[in-house]
């Protein structure tokens, strides 16, 4: 098994175009699969030395997070945490403190687990990926990356360089909640993210609702968002939101949860996340 450490995005893309080449960022998914015999790439391409892969910056367009920045580092960024608390709390739920020291947004997204914790929150926030490959760079909304369990829409040789989040509008808030059987360490049985914007009177003007672990990919649930827009996010609206969230689910029975459970709890968590998002928006 070969190991390469390219120092430019172009070199990385070129190496990744080869048959059997695999990206290594944080390694918290890849090394588990290697040890379990579920992956045996011919070449590991460690992209952590590529410039722009690490670090957080802010400009007029918004926030940019290098795709191989560790979750621990992102969580320590006070301004980003204040701007997008839902995104940051979501990515901080991935694994343990030790996992946080290595795990990355790029890996969490491209590994394409339907239960990935950071993805619903990124989708709700309207995040966009910077993808680089042999054919240059492009921007892709996060919700277009995962196409099925373990499958993503990147072409051979492409990888994610960074994530862009818009500047959060005034009076907006986001939140992510997940249901796990224990208090930590589990893969989400259900994940729900809500990002919303209120006007001066407290009426919701925009919303995005994303669910995780209840379908082969994360779901951006437009009906759930519609249930909130034009309302004060009151209990009646939240009930409609919950029903829409439950209706959108296409889950499976597996070792972590049943279909019935996921459908029900998706509604419960969507409601609770919406309440938190509303409170965060009102506080601004």
């Amino acid at each position, binding site marked *: 098994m070969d190991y390469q450490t390219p120092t430019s995005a172009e070199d990385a893309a070129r190496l990744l175009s080869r048959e059997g080449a695999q990206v290594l960022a944080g390694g918290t998914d890849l090394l588990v699969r290697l040890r379990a015999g579920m992956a045996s790439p011919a070449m590991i391409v460690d992209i952590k030395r590529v410039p722009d892969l690490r670090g957080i910056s802010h400009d007029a367009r918004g926030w940019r997070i290098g795709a191989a920045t*560790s979750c621990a580092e992102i969580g320590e960024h006070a301004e980003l945490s204040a701007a997008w608390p839902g995104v940051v709390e979501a990515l901080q739920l991935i694994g343990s403190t*030790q996992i946080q020291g290595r795990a990355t947004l790029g890996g969490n997204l491209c590994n394409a687990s339907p239960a990935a914790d950071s993805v619903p929150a990124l989708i709700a926030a309207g995040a966009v990926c910077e993808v680089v490959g042999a054919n240059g760079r492009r921007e892709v909304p996060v919700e277009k990356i995962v196409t099925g369990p373990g499958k993503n829409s990147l072409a051979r040789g492409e990888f994610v360089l960074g994530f862009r989040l818009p500047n959060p509008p005034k009076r907006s808030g986001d939140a992510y909640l997940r249901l796990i059987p224990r*208090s930590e360490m589990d893969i989400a049985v259900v994940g729900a993210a809500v990002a919303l914007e209120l006007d001066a009177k407290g009426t919701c003007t925009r919303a995005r609702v994303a669910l995780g672990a209840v379908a082969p990919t994360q779901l951006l649930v437009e009906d759930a968002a519609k249930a909130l827009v034009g309302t004060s996010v009151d209990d009646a609206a939240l009930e409609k939101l919950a029903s829409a969230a439950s209706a959108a689910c296409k889950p499976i029975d597996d070792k972590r949860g049943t279909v019935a459970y996921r459908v029900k709890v998706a509604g419960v968590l969507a409601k609770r996340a919406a309440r938190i998002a509303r409170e965060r928006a009102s506080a601004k």
Partner: protein
Amino acid sequence: MAKHHVTTTVNGDSVEFLCTTEQTLLDVLRDELFLTGSKEGCSSGDCGACSVMLDGRLVCSCLVLGVEAEGCEVETIEGMAHGEHLHPLQRVFIEEAALQCGICTPGILVAAKALLEKQPDPSETEVRFWLAGNLCRCTGYDKIVRAVLDAAAQMRAGAASSASGKSSIGNKPATARA
């Protein structure tokens, strides 16, 4: 396929080793450098028994490749004491019976040290969530959490680490925390 030649720093010492791509940092620490204090409990990053510090970050060494250590600073349990002076956490763990079989202890000590370096006055909840990635099957975590909180208090008060690890007689009531 030829092995990689890696130069790194372990517990302050410059170290070189050869490893294959597949060998994890844990494999290398144990099988090449004979630093067996870091333990293998699961090989999947779920138990924390292999915890080390990598460039100042708490990580599972079973989830880092040996080659990735090139040019890095690695700190393991073997580097926690200074000569015969135990770190306050090590001393308090013994005094407060915060270990039974001891297999999880190196990982927990490395993790706890990382916590106290970042947050010298953690709450019980903060300690518990920080240590959620370190499984212990013997103690039920109670005495571990109390020992971390007590060591933190002692470190804040500037108590010097004990001169040696000799046994001490006496009751050490744990700090009561909500």
